């Protein structure tokens, strides 16, 4: 905890691994939220015109 974090360096991209992991976790959580069914919603909502 009391040492500099390791960094990912690729071209002009320079980011610490903890920050990179957090961004990856956020993207993963966003995708899961899109795909995971919401409790109590067993059907897609009726679209207009149907």
């Amino acid at each position: 905890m009391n040492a500099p974090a390791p960094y990912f360096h690729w071209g002009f991209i320079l980011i610490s691994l903890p920050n990179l992991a957090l961004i990856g976790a956020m993207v993963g959580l966003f995708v899961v939220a899109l795909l995971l069914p919401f409790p109590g919603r067993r059907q897609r909502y009726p679209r207009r015109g149907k």
Partner: protein
Amino acid sequence: MTEEQGPAGRSPTADDLAAAVPSTRSWTVTVRRLLTERLPLEHVLPDHEPVFVGSWVYVFGVVAIAALVWVIVSGVILAFMGPQWWHVSPQGRFANSLHFWSVQLFFVFMVLHLWGQYFGAGWRHGRAGTWMVGVVVFLASIVTAFTGYLAQQNFASQWIAINAKDGINATGAGAFFNVLNFGQMYGLHVMLLPALVTALVVIHVLQVRMRGVVRPIGDEPGGPPQ
């Protein structure tokens, strides 16, 4: 008909009361009329939501607000007890960690909420103001978090302040926003900026309540049937 009764002997409604007031320039009448028209109580405290809101994506915003509540609760405790307590005692270190990690969650879920609204184009159909206030909440939160890092009262806060000084000076704001002035940064962090963020969040939620949640893309009124 008594004074307490409206037309036909029934209790007066808000519309009756509004109609009974003559045309006036009174600001209280104007504000009351605007609130009655644009923010009725059934919009402020709805008992059901549109069916398309049944998605985890719509949970991110309320989780961010829940994290903000914990930020404020832990911050009030820290402000009351003081730096020595939050640095030395186990209870203080716990409250300090609670404050730090609830801020992390606040930002994580605020950004996830932002992504959801960006990809869903949440500013459509008269909701541009809601989007813009949300952007200002984000920017104000960054400044609040920054002053929080400066108010830690440790070597990290001194390092951040000294390194930030040149950058802030370069923006021209250094004359009135002095990151080396602990009293100024602490006052901003515990009083003015939290009040600003909280007020903006309340306005943001009321804006959502006024217009409701935007319909999904491709399902707008007047759009082609899906």
